Protein backbone atom coordinates (compact mmCIF):
# COMPACT_ATOMS: atom_id res chain seq x y z
CA UNK A 1 0.00 0.00 0.00
CA UNK A 2 1.53 3.30 -1.06
CA UNK A 3 -0.59 5.88 0.74
CA UNK A 4 -1.73 5.35 4.32
CA UNK A 5 -5.40 4.45 4.65
CA UNK A 6 -7.67 7.19 5.95
CA UNK A 7 -8.90 6.65 9.49
CA UNK A 8 -12.57 5.66 9.39
CA UNK A 9 -13.29 7.21 12.78
CA UNK A 10 -12.50 10.48 14.47
CA UNK A 11 -12.10 10.23 18.21
CA UNK A 12 -14.03 12.67 20.34
CA UNK A 13 -10.88 13.35 22.32
CA UNK A 14 -7.56 14.02 20.64
CA UNK A 15 -5.42 15.22 23.51
CA UNK A 16 -5.06 13.52 26.91
CA UNK A 17 -6.71 15.09 29.94
CA UNK A 18 -3.53 14.84 31.95
CA UNK A 19 0.15 14.74 31.27
CA UNK A 20 0.61 11.18 32.53
CA UNK A 21 -2.42 9.57 30.88
CA UNK A 22 -2.34 7.77 27.57
CA UNK A 23 -4.91 7.24 24.83
CA UNK A 24 -5.09 3.72 23.43
CA UNK A 25 -7.14 2.18 20.69
CA UNK A 26 -8.83 -1.19 21.32
CA UNK A 27 -10.33 -2.94 18.34
CA UNK A 28 -12.27 -3.10 16.07
CA UNK A 29 -10.53 -6.41 15.57
CA UNK A 30 -9.18 -7.39 18.94
CA UNK A 31 -8.59 -10.96 20.06
CA UNK A 32 -10.18 -10.37 23.47
CA UNK A 33 -13.50 -8.96 22.32
CA UNK A 34 -16.10 -10.79 20.35
CA UNK A 35 -17.85 -8.54 17.91
CA UNK A 36 -16.26 -5.79 15.88
CA UNK A 37 -16.34 -2.73 18.09
CA UNK A 38 -13.73 -0.06 18.54
CA UNK A 39 -13.12 1.47 21.93
CA UNK A 40 -10.82 4.45 22.17
CA UNK A 41 -9.86 4.72 25.82
CA UNK A 42 -7.84 7.16 27.83
CA UNK A 43 -5.90 5.32 30.52
CA UNK A 44 -4.24 6.31 33.73
CA UNK A 45 -2.12 3.24 34.23
CA UNK A 46 -4.71 0.44 34.27
CA UNK A 47 -7.61 2.73 35.10
CA UNK A 48 -9.97 3.85 32.35
CA UNK A 49 -10.60 7.59 32.51
CA UNK A 50 -12.97 7.90 29.58
CA UNK A 51 -13.96 5.95 26.51
CA UNK A 52 -15.32 6.62 23.05
CA UNK A 53 -17.18 3.62 21.62
CA UNK A 54 -17.49 3.23 17.86
CA UNK A 55 -19.65 0.66 16.14
CA UNK A 56 -20.69 0.33 12.53
CA UNK A 57 -18.00 -2.02 11.29
CA UNK A 58 -20.66 -4.56 10.39
CA UNK A 59 -22.98 -2.07 8.72
CA UNK A 60 -24.31 -3.59 5.54
CA UNK A 61 -27.20 -1.36 4.57
CA UNK A 62 -29.92 -3.59 5.97
CA UNK A 63 -32.58 -0.89 6.01
CA UNK A 64 -31.74 0.27 2.48
CA UNK A 65 -31.87 -3.28 1.22
CA UNK A 66 -35.29 -3.78 2.84
CA UNK A 67 -36.78 -1.08 0.65
CA UNK A 68 -35.91 -3.10 -2.43
CA UNK A 69 -37.37 -6.49 -1.52
CA UNK A 70 -40.83 -7.87 -0.96
CA UNK A 71 -42.14 -8.21 2.58
CA UNK A 72 -41.69 -11.92 2.29
CA UNK A 73 -38.09 -11.77 1.10
CA UNK A 74 -37.06 -9.85 4.19
CA UNK A 75 -37.48 -12.82 6.52
CA UNK A 76 -33.98 -14.23 5.85
CA UNK A 77 -32.55 -10.72 6.32
CA UNK A 78 -34.11 -10.13 9.71
CA UNK A 79 -32.68 -13.49 10.79
CA UNK A 80 -29.25 -12.01 10.41
CA UNK A 81 -29.79 -9.10 12.79
CA UNK A 82 -29.35 -10.91 16.08
CA UNK A 83 -28.05 -14.18 14.71
CA UNK A 84 -27.91 -15.77 18.16
CA UNK A 85 -31.66 -15.60 18.65
CA UNK A 86 -32.84 -15.31 15.08
CA UNK A 87 -36.31 -16.68 15.79
CA UNK A 88 -37.22 -13.69 17.95
CA UNK A 89 -36.34 -11.38 15.07
CA UNK A 90 -38.46 -13.46 12.73
CA UNK A 91 -41.49 -13.38 14.97
CA UNK A 92 -41.22 -9.69 15.83
CA UNK A 93 -40.97 -8.80 12.16
CA UNK A 94 -43.84 -11.09 11.13
CA UNK A 95 -45.96 -9.77 14.00
CA UNK A 96 -45.46 -6.22 12.74
CA UNK A 97 -46.45 -7.10 9.18
CA UNK A 98 -49.44 -9.07 10.47
CA UNK A 99 -50.59 -6.05 12.46
CA UNK A 100 -50.42 -3.93 9.31
CA UNK A 101 -52.43 -6.55 7.43
CA UNK A 102 -54.90 -7.08 10.26
CA UNK A 103 -54.16 -10.79 10.53
CA UNK A 104 -54.66 -12.83 13.65
CA UNK A 105 -52.44 -15.91 13.74
CA UNK A 106 -53.80 -19.34 14.61
CA UNK A 107 -53.66 -20.55 18.25
CA UNK A 108 -51.12 -23.29 17.51
CA UNK A 109 -48.85 -20.80 15.78
CA UNK A 110 -49.19 -18.37 18.68
CA UNK A 111 -48.11 -20.97 21.25
CA UNK A 112 -45.36 -22.33 19.03
CA UNK A 113 -43.94 -18.87 18.46
CA UNK A 114 -43.96 -18.23 22.19
CA UNK A 115 -42.23 -21.53 22.88
CA UNK A 116 -39.60 -20.89 20.23
CA UNK A 117 -39.05 -17.32 21.42
CA UNK A 118 -38.24 -18.67 24.85
CA UNK A 119 -36.04 -21.35 23.32
CA UNK A 120 -34.16 -18.60 21.50
CA UNK A 121 -33.80 -16.61 24.70
CA UNK A 122 -32.34 -19.69 26.35
CA UNK A 123 -29.81 -20.15 23.53
CA UNK A 124 -28.92 -16.46 23.53
CA UNK A 125 -28.36 -16.26 27.28
CA UNK A 126 -26.38 -19.51 27.24
CA UNK A 127 -24.07 -18.04 24.62
CA UNK A 128 -23.69 -14.76 26.47
CA UNK A 129 -23.01 -16.34 29.87
CA UNK A 130 -20.68 -18.97 28.40
CA UNK A 131 -18.61 -16.43 26.49
CA UNK A 132 -18.56 -14.03 29.43
CA UNK A 133 -17.24 -16.70 31.77
CA UNK A 134 -14.70 -17.90 29.26
CA UNK A 135 -13.32 -14.39 28.97
CA UNK A 136 -12.54 -14.56 32.66
CA UNK A 137 -10.87 -17.93 32.35
CA UNK A 138 -13.70 -20.38 33.09
CA UNK A 139 -13.16 -22.74 30.20
CA UNK A 140 -15.09 -25.53 31.92
CA UNK A 141 -18.23 -23.44 32.31
CA UNK A 142 -17.92 -22.36 28.70
CA UNK A 143 -17.70 -25.93 27.45
CA UNK A 144 -20.60 -27.09 29.64
CA UNK A 145 -22.92 -24.37 28.40
CA UNK A 146 -21.86 -24.46 24.77
CA UNK A 147 -22.32 -28.20 24.71
CA UNK A 148 -25.92 -27.80 25.84
CA UNK A 149 -26.34 -24.98 23.35
CA UNK A 150 -25.17 -27.27 20.60
CA UNK A 151 -27.86 -29.83 21.51
CA UNK A 152 -30.33 -26.99 21.11
CA UNK A 153 -28.89 -25.89 17.77
CA UNK A 154 -29.15 -29.44 16.46
CA UNK A 155 -32.65 -29.69 17.84
CA UNK A 156 -33.70 -26.44 16.17
CA UNK A 157 -32.04 -27.64 12.97
CA UNK A 158 -34.33 -30.68 13.07
CA UNK A 159 -37.29 -28.31 13.09
CA UNK A 160 -36.14 -25.52 10.79
CA UNK A 161 -33.36 -27.01 8.69
CA UNK A 162 -30.66 -24.62 9.89
CA UNK A 163 -28.56 -24.25 13.01
CA UNK A 164 -28.39 -20.49 13.36
CA UNK A 165 -30.31 -18.52 10.74
CA UNK A 166 -33.59 -20.35 10.58
CA UNK A 167 -35.89 -18.31 8.29
CA UNK A 168 -38.67 -20.11 10.11
CA UNK A 169 -41.26 -17.37 10.59
CA UNK A 170 -43.78 -16.67 7.86
CA UNK A 171 -46.18 -13.78 7.52
CA UNK A 172 -49.33 -15.32 8.96
CA UNK A 173 -47.70 -18.44 10.35
CA UNK A 174 -44.63 -20.63 10.34
CA UNK A 175 -42.62 -22.51 7.74
CA UNK A 176 -43.62 -25.99 8.95
CA UNK A 177 -45.08 -27.84 11.88
CA UNK A 178 -43.15 -29.77 14.53
CA UNK A 179 -41.58 -33.02 13.38
CA UNK A 180 -42.43 -36.31 15.11
CA UNK A 181 -40.96 -36.60 18.60
CA UNK A 182 -39.69 -33.03 18.75
CA UNK A 183 -41.29 -32.19 22.08
CA UNK A 184 -40.00 -35.41 23.68
CA UNK A 185 -36.46 -34.53 22.63
CA UNK A 186 -37.01 -31.00 23.94
CA UNK A 187 -37.70 -32.36 27.42
CA UNK A 188 -34.52 -34.46 27.27
CA UNK A 189 -32.49 -31.39 26.41
CA UNK A 190 -34.10 -29.33 29.15
CA UNK A 191 -33.18 -31.98 31.70
CA UNK A 192 -29.59 -31.86 30.49
CA UNK A 193 -29.67 -28.08 30.58
CA UNK A 194 -30.69 -28.19 34.24
CA UNK A 195 -27.86 -30.56 35.07
CA UNK A 196 -25.18 -28.41 33.45
CA UNK A 197 -26.52 -25.07 34.59
CA UNK A 198 -26.51 -26.39 38.16
CA UNK A 199 -22.83 -27.22 37.73
CA UNK A 200 -22.12 -23.70 36.44
CA UNK A 201 -23.98 -22.22 39.41
CA UNK A 202 -21.82 -24.33 41.69
CA UNK A 203 -18.63 -23.28 39.94
CA UNK A 204 -19.27 -19.56 39.69
CA UNK A 205 -21.89 -18.11 42.03
CA UNK A 206 -19.91 -18.12 45.26
CA UNK A 207 -16.46 -18.36 43.74
CA UNK A 208 -14.24 -15.66 45.24
CA UNK A 209 -12.40 -15.06 41.95
CA UNK A 210 -15.58 -14.40 40.03
CA UNK A 211 -17.19 -12.31 42.72
CA UNK A 212 -14.09 -10.12 42.80
CA UNK A 213 -14.10 -9.76 39.04
CA UNK A 214 -17.86 -9.14 38.75
CA UNK A 215 -19.21 -7.44 41.88
CA UNK A 216 -19.18 -3.67 41.65
CA UNK A 217 -17.77 -3.74 38.12
CA UNK A 218 -19.49 -2.07 35.20
CA UNK A 219 -22.14 -0.51 37.45
CA UNK A 220 -25.02 1.45 35.99
CA UNK A 221 -27.76 3.01 38.10
CA UNK A 222 -31.47 2.61 37.35
CA UNK A 223 -31.79 6.30 36.50
CA UNK A 224 -28.85 6.16 34.11
CA UNK A 225 -30.04 2.93 32.55
CA UNK A 226 -33.44 4.46 31.83
CA UNK A 227 -31.98 7.71 30.57
CA UNK A 228 -29.65 5.84 28.22
CA UNK A 229 -32.49 3.74 26.84
CA UNK A 230 -31.36 0.42 28.33
CA UNK A 231 -33.88 -2.39 28.27
CA UNK A 232 -33.76 -6.12 28.88
CA UNK A 233 -31.30 -7.72 31.34
CA UNK A 234 -29.27 -4.52 31.68
CA UNK A 235 -32.24 -2.50 32.93
CA UNK A 236 -33.53 -5.37 35.05
CA UNK A 237 -30.12 -5.90 36.63
CA UNK A 238 -30.49 -2.45 38.19
CA UNK A 239 -33.60 -3.60 40.02
CA UNK A 240 -36.37 -2.36 37.76
CA UNK A 241 -38.78 -5.15 36.76
CA UNK A 242 -39.61 -3.92 33.31
CA UNK A 243 -40.36 -6.61 30.78
CA UNK A 244 -42.59 -6.36 27.73
CA UNK A 245 -43.77 -9.92 28.29
CA UNK A 246 -45.39 -8.75 31.54
CA UNK A 247 -46.09 -5.08 30.83
CA UNK A 248 -47.60 -5.39 27.37
CA UNK A 249 -48.11 -9.13 26.85
CA UNK A 250 -47.95 -10.30 23.26
CA UNK A 251 -48.16 -13.81 21.79
CA UNK A 252 -49.24 -16.16 24.62
CA UNK A 253 -47.36 -14.52 27.49
CA UNK A 254 -50.53 -13.35 29.22
CA UNK A 255 -51.49 -16.99 29.86
CA UNK A 256 -48.15 -18.06 31.30
CA UNK A 257 -46.92 -18.11 34.85
CA UNK A 258 -43.43 -16.63 35.18
CA UNK A 259 -41.34 -14.23 37.22
CA UNK A 260 -39.25 -11.29 36.07
CA UNK A 261 -35.89 -11.65 37.84
CA UNK A 262 -34.16 -8.43 38.81
CA UNK A 263 -30.76 -7.52 40.20
CA UNK A 264 -29.72 -5.22 43.00
CA UNK A 265 -26.67 -3.26 41.96
CA UNK A 266 -26.69 -3.15 38.15
CA UNK A 267 -23.18 -4.59 37.94
CA UNK A 268 -21.66 -7.44 35.97
CA UNK A 269 -22.55 -9.98 38.64
CA UNK A 270 -26.23 -8.98 38.51
CA UNK A 271 -26.27 -9.15 34.75
CA UNK A 272 -24.80 -12.64 34.93
CA UNK A 273 -27.33 -13.70 37.55
CA UNK A 274 -30.35 -12.11 35.88
CA UNK A 275 -29.51 -14.03 32.72
CA UNK A 276 -29.10 -17.29 34.63
CA UNK A 277 -32.47 -16.79 36.34
CA UNK A 278 -34.19 -15.77 33.11
CA UNK A 279 -33.06 -19.02 31.54
CA UNK A 280 -34.76 -20.95 34.35
CA UNK A 281 -37.94 -18.94 33.78
CA UNK A 282 -37.74 -19.67 30.06
CA UNK A 283 -37.47 -23.37 30.76
CA UNK A 284 -40.45 -23.14 33.10
CA UNK A 285 -42.46 -21.35 30.39
CA UNK A 286 -41.46 -23.85 27.71
CA UNK A 287 -42.70 -26.72 29.85
CA UNK A 288 -46.03 -24.95 30.34
CA UNK A 289 -46.27 -24.26 26.62
CA UNK A 290 -45.50 -27.85 25.68
CA UNK A 291 -48.55 -28.84 27.73
CA UNK A 292 -50.77 -26.07 26.37
CA UNK A 293 -49.90 -26.49 22.71
CA UNK A 294 -53.20 -26.98 20.82
CA UNK A 295 -53.68 -28.97 17.64
CA UNK A 296 -54.70 -27.20 14.45
CA UNK A 297 -53.23 -25.38 11.47
CA UNK A 298 -50.12 -23.24 11.85
CA UNK A 299 -50.84 -20.86 8.97
CA UNK A 300 -53.79 -18.54 8.58
CA UNK A 301 -56.02 -19.20 5.60
CA UNK A 302 -55.44 -15.87 3.92
CA UNK A 303 -54.53 -15.69 0.26
CA UNK A 304 -52.84 -12.30 0.69
CA UNK A 305 -49.89 -13.82 2.47
CA UNK A 306 -50.05 -17.60 2.82
CA UNK A 307 -48.78 -19.70 -0.03
CA UNK A 308 -51.28 -22.23 -1.42
CA UNK A 309 -50.51 -25.95 -1.11
CA UNK A 310 -48.13 -27.18 -3.77
CA UNK A 311 -50.68 -29.85 -4.66
CA UNK A 312 -53.17 -27.18 -5.65
CA UNK A 313 -50.60 -24.98 -7.39
CA UNK A 314 -49.99 -27.82 -9.84
CA UNK A 315 -53.68 -28.55 -10.40
CA UNK A 316 -55.63 -25.31 -10.61
CA UNK A 317 -54.96 -21.99 -12.30
CA UNK A 318 -56.16 -19.78 -9.40
CA UNK A 319 -53.64 -21.24 -6.98
CA UNK A 320 -50.90 -21.09 -9.59
CA UNK A 321 -51.55 -17.37 -10.15
CA UNK A 322 -51.81 -16.85 -6.40
CA UNK A 323 -48.41 -18.45 -5.90
CA UNK A 324 -46.92 -16.46 -8.78
CA UNK A 325 -48.26 -13.14 -7.47
CA UNK A 326 -47.02 -13.83 -3.96
CA UNK A 327 -43.52 -14.57 -5.25
CA UNK A 328 -43.29 -11.79 -7.83
CA UNK A 329 -45.25 -8.94 -6.22
CA UNK A 330 -45.05 -9.91 -2.58
CA UNK A 331 -47.84 -9.90 -0.01
CA UNK A 332 -50.16 -6.92 -0.40
CA UNK A 333 -49.68 -5.02 2.83
CA UNK A 334 -52.12 -2.13 3.25
CA UNK A 335 -50.73 1.39 3.61
CA UNK A 336 -49.94 2.35 7.16
CA UNK A 337 -47.24 2.31 9.77
CA UNK A 338 -46.58 0.19 12.79
CA UNK A 339 -44.08 -0.02 15.62
CA UNK A 340 -43.98 -3.59 16.83
CA UNK A 341 -41.75 -4.47 19.78
CA UNK A 342 -40.91 -7.83 21.29
CA UNK A 343 -38.82 -8.57 24.36
CA UNK A 344 -35.72 -9.95 22.71
CA UNK A 345 -33.04 -11.57 24.91
CA UNK A 346 -31.08 -8.31 24.97
CA UNK A 347 -33.94 -5.88 25.34
CA UNK A 348 -36.68 -4.24 23.37
CA UNK A 349 -36.41 -5.17 19.71
CA UNK A 350 -38.68 -2.89 17.73
CA UNK A 351 -39.61 -2.87 14.07
CA UNK A 352 -40.90 0.45 12.75
CA UNK A 353 -42.37 -0.22 9.34
CA UNK A 354 -44.07 2.04 6.84
CA UNK A 355 -46.08 0.65 3.97
CA UNK A 356 -47.48 2.58 1.04
CA UNK A 357 -49.65 -0.32 0.01
CA UNK A 358 -47.31 -2.31 -2.23
CA UNK A 359 -45.58 -5.62 -2.02
CA UNK A 360 -42.40 -3.90 -0.84
CA UNK A 361 -41.95 -1.79 2.29
CA UNK A 362 -41.44 1.95 2.03
CA UNK A 363 -39.33 1.84 5.13
CA UNK A 364 -38.18 -0.70 7.69
CA UNK A 365 -36.35 0.56 10.72
CA UNK A 366 -35.01 -1.63 13.49
CA UNK A 367 -34.83 -0.35 17.03
CA UNK A 368 -31.99 -2.60 18.01
CA UNK A 369 -31.21 -2.98 21.71
CA UNK A 370 -27.51 -3.58 21.00
CA UNK A 371 -27.12 -0.24 19.27
CA UNK A 372 -28.80 1.71 22.05
CA UNK A 373 -26.76 -0.17 24.65
CA UNK A 374 -23.56 0.81 22.85
CA UNK A 375 -24.54 4.40 23.57
CA UNK A 376 -24.65 3.51 27.26
CA UNK A 377 -21.44 1.45 27.22
CA UNK A 378 -19.18 4.36 28.13
CA UNK A 379 -21.16 4.80 31.35
CA UNK A 380 -20.28 1.27 32.39
CA UNK A 381 -16.64 1.33 31.25
CA UNK A 382 -15.48 4.73 32.50
CA UNK A 383 -13.74 4.59 35.84
CA UNK A 384 -13.14 0.85 35.68
CA UNK A 385 -10.05 -1.20 34.96
CA UNK A 386 -8.70 -1.86 31.49
CA UNK A 387 -9.05 -5.61 32.08
CA UNK A 388 -12.72 -5.17 33.01
CA UNK A 389 -13.61 -3.72 29.62
CA UNK A 390 -13.82 -7.23 28.18
CA UNK A 391 -16.23 -8.79 30.74
CA UNK A 392 -18.32 -5.62 30.94
CA UNK A 393 -18.60 -5.46 27.20
CA UNK A 394 -19.47 -9.16 27.20
CA UNK A 395 -22.23 -8.62 29.76
CA UNK A 396 -23.83 -5.98 27.53
CA UNK A 397 -23.95 -8.73 24.89
CA UNK A 398 -23.66 -6.51 21.87
CA UNK A 399 -24.45 -8.45 18.71
CA UNK A 400 -22.76 -6.83 15.72
CA UNK A 401 -25.34 -7.89 13.16
CA UNK A 402 -28.10 -6.20 15.08
CA UNK A 403 -26.13 -3.21 16.31
CA UNK A 404 -24.72 -2.16 12.96
CA UNK A 405 -27.45 -3.41 10.62
Amino acid at each position, binding site marked *: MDTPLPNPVRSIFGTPLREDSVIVNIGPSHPATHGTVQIIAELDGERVLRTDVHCGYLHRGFE*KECEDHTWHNLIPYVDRLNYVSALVNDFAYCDGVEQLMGIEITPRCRYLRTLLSEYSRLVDHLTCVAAGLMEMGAMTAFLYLVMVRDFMYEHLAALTGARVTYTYGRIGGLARDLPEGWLARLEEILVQYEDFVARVHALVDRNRIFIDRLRGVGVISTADALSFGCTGPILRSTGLARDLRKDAPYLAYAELDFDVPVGIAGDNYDRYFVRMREMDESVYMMRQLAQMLPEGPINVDDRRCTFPDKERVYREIESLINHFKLVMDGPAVPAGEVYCAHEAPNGELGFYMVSTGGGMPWKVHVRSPSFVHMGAASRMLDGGQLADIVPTFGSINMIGGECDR
Partner: protein
Amino acid sequence: MATDLLESLQQQIVPAAGAATLSHGCLVFSLAPEELMPTVRRLKEEFGYDLFLDVTAVDWPADALRFEVVHHFASSRQPLRVRLKTRVAAADPSVDSLAKLYGSAAFMERECHDMYGIAFRGNHDLRPILLYEGFTGHPLRKDYPKGREQPLVPYRN
Protein backbone atom coordinates in the same frame (compact mmCIF):
# COMPACT_ATOMS: atom_id res chain seq x y z
CA MET B 1 -57.98 3.80 29.33
CA ALA B 2 -56.40 4.29 25.94
CA THR B 3 -58.99 6.80 24.80
CA ASP B 4 -58.86 8.68 28.14
CA LEU B 5 -55.15 9.08 27.81
CA LEU B 6 -55.49 10.04 24.19
CA GLU B 7 -57.94 12.80 25.09
CA SER B 8 -55.97 14.14 28.00
CA LEU B 9 -52.74 14.09 26.05
CA GLN B 10 -54.40 15.68 23.08
CA GLN B 11 -55.94 18.48 25.11
CA GLN B 12 -53.03 19.13 27.39
CA ILE B 13 -50.08 18.62 25.17
CA VAL B 14 -50.80 19.61 21.67
CA PRO B 15 -54.03 21.57 21.40
CA ALA B 16 -52.70 23.06 18.20
CA ALA B 17 -51.84 19.83 16.41
CA GLY B 18 -55.21 18.18 16.77
CA ALA B 19 -54.11 15.22 14.72
CA ALA B 20 -53.56 12.64 17.46
CA THR B 21 -54.57 9.13 16.53
CA LEU B 22 -54.33 5.69 18.02
CA SER B 23 -52.57 3.23 15.77
CA HIS B 24 -51.54 -0.34 16.69
CA GLY B 25 -50.95 0.40 20.37
CA CYS B 26 -49.23 3.71 19.69
CA LEU B 27 -50.47 7.25 20.25
CA VAL B 28 -49.42 9.24 17.21
CA PHE B 29 -48.97 13.00 17.23
CA SER B 30 -48.04 15.11 14.25
CA LEU B 31 -46.15 18.16 15.38
CA ALA B 32 -44.61 21.30 14.01
CA PRO B 33 -40.83 21.39 14.64
CA GLU B 34 -41.07 24.06 17.34
CA GLU B 35 -43.62 21.99 19.28
CA LEU B 36 -41.31 19.01 19.59
CA MET B 37 -39.22 20.09 22.57
CA PRO B 38 -42.08 21.30 24.82
CA THR B 39 -44.14 18.22 23.97
CA VAL B 40 -41.37 15.80 24.84
CA ARG B 41 -40.64 17.65 28.05
CA ARG B 42 -44.26 17.37 29.15
CA LEU B 43 -44.46 13.74 28.10
CA LYS B 44 -41.44 12.98 30.22
CA GLU B 45 -42.23 15.08 33.25
CA GLU B 46 -46.00 14.75 33.52
CA PHE B 47 -46.85 11.45 31.87
CA GLY B 48 -43.88 9.31 32.85
CA TYR B 49 -42.46 8.74 29.37
CA ASP B 50 -39.03 8.02 30.76
CA LEU B 51 -37.73 5.73 28.04
CA PHE B 52 -36.72 7.31 24.74
CA LEU B 53 -36.79 4.33 22.43
CA ASP B 54 -35.86 5.41 19.02
CA VAL B 55 -35.48 8.18 16.49
CA THR B 56 -35.52 7.76 12.75
CA ALA B 57 -36.92 9.53 9.70
CA VAL B 58 -39.06 8.72 6.69
CA ASP B 59 -38.27 10.22 3.32
CA TRP B 60 -41.21 11.37 1.18
CA PRO B 61 -39.44 12.91 -1.85
CA ALA B 62 -42.66 14.14 -3.47
CA ASP B 63 -43.76 16.23 -0.48
CA ALA B 64 -42.86 19.85 0.18
CA LEU B 65 -41.92 18.95 3.76
CA ARG B 66 -39.82 16.03 2.66
CA PHE B 67 -38.60 14.42 5.87
CA GLU B 68 -40.71 13.07 8.65
CA VAL B 69 -38.64 12.70 11.82
CA VAL B 70 -40.16 9.97 13.97
CA HIS B 71 -39.56 9.64 17.72
CA HIS B 72 -40.82 6.76 19.86
CA PHE B 73 -41.26 6.83 23.62
CA ALA B 74 -42.31 4.33 26.26
CA SER B 75 -43.64 5.01 29.71
CA SER B 76 -43.32 3.26 33.03
CA ARG B 77 -46.92 4.16 33.87
CA GLN B 78 -48.93 3.12 30.82
CA PRO B 79 -48.47 0.44 28.19
CA LEU B 80 -49.19 2.84 25.33
CA ARG B 81 -46.20 4.03 23.40
CA VAL B 82 -46.09 7.50 21.91
CA ARG B 83 -44.91 8.33 18.42
CA LEU B 84 -44.14 11.93 17.50
CA LYS B 85 -43.91 12.84 13.85
CA THR B 86 -42.28 16.09 12.87
CA ARG B 87 -42.18 17.22 9.24
CA VAL B 88 -39.20 19.25 8.05
CA ALA B 89 -38.25 20.59 4.62
CA ALA B 90 -35.28 19.31 2.64
CA ALA B 91 -33.80 22.82 2.54
CA ASP B 92 -33.47 22.93 6.33
CA PRO B 93 -33.84 19.44 7.75
CA SER B 94 -33.34 20.26 11.42
CA VAL B 95 -35.16 19.59 14.66
CA ASP B 96 -34.21 20.13 18.28
CA SER B 97 -32.00 17.51 19.88
CA LEU B 98 -33.40 15.63 22.86
CA ALA B 99 -29.92 15.18 24.34
CA LYS B 100 -30.79 17.48 27.24
CA LEU B 101 -33.66 15.24 28.31
CA TYR B 102 -32.41 11.73 27.52
CA GLY B 103 -28.91 10.34 27.62
CA SER B 104 -29.67 7.96 24.77
CA ALA B 105 -30.57 10.76 22.36
CA ALA B 106 -27.02 11.85 21.57
CA PHE B 107 -26.11 8.41 20.24
CA MET B 108 -29.32 7.61 18.39
CA GLU B 109 -29.47 11.00 16.71
CA ARG B 110 -26.05 10.32 15.21
CA GLU B 111 -27.51 7.39 13.32
CA CYS B 112 -30.43 9.43 12.01
CA HIS B 113 -27.99 12.15 10.96
CA ASP B 114 -25.87 9.53 9.15
CA MET B 115 -28.78 8.04 7.28
CA TYR B 116 -30.96 11.05 6.48
CA GLY B 117 -28.84 14.12 7.13
CA ILE B 118 -31.25 15.43 9.76
CA ALA B 119 -29.47 18.07 11.83
CA PHE B 120 -30.26 17.90 15.53
CA ARG B 121 -29.87 21.35 17.04
CA GLY B 122 -28.07 21.14 20.35
CA ASN B 123 -26.35 17.82 19.68
CA HIS B 124 -22.71 18.74 19.27
CA ASP B 125 -21.54 15.24 18.50
CA LEU B 126 -23.00 14.26 15.15
CA ARG B 127 -19.94 12.32 14.00
CA PRO B 128 -20.69 9.30 11.80
CA ILE B 129 -21.55 6.22 13.83
CA LEU B 130 -22.65 3.49 11.43
CA LEU B 131 -20.91 5.14 8.48
CA TYR B 132 -17.35 6.42 8.39
CA GLU B 133 -15.52 9.71 8.18
CA GLY B 134 -15.52 10.99 4.64
CA PHE B 135 -18.69 9.22 3.52
CA THR B 136 -20.65 11.56 1.30
CA GLY B 137 -24.43 11.58 1.08
CA HIS B 138 -27.11 10.01 3.23
CA PRO B 139 -27.82 6.44 2.18
CA LEU B 140 -31.40 6.05 3.38
CA ARG B 141 -32.61 9.03 1.37
CA LYS B 142 -34.64 7.76 -1.54
CA ASP B 143 -32.42 9.55 -4.08
CA TYR B 144 -29.28 7.74 -2.90
CA PRO B 145 -28.76 4.86 -5.35
CA LYS B 146 -28.62 1.49 -3.67
CA GLY B 147 -25.61 0.35 -5.68
CA ARG B 148 -23.32 3.33 -5.06
CA GLU B 149 -20.02 2.32 -3.50
CA GLN B 150 -17.59 4.47 -1.57
CA PRO B 151 -14.81 2.11 -0.58
CA LEU B 152 -12.25 3.38 1.89
CA VAL B 153 -9.81 0.70 0.82
CA PRO B 154 -9.26 0.50 -2.94
CA TYR B 155 -10.39 -2.76 -4.52
CA ARG B 156 -7.70 -5.19 -5.57
CA ASN B 157 -7.82 -6.19 -9.20
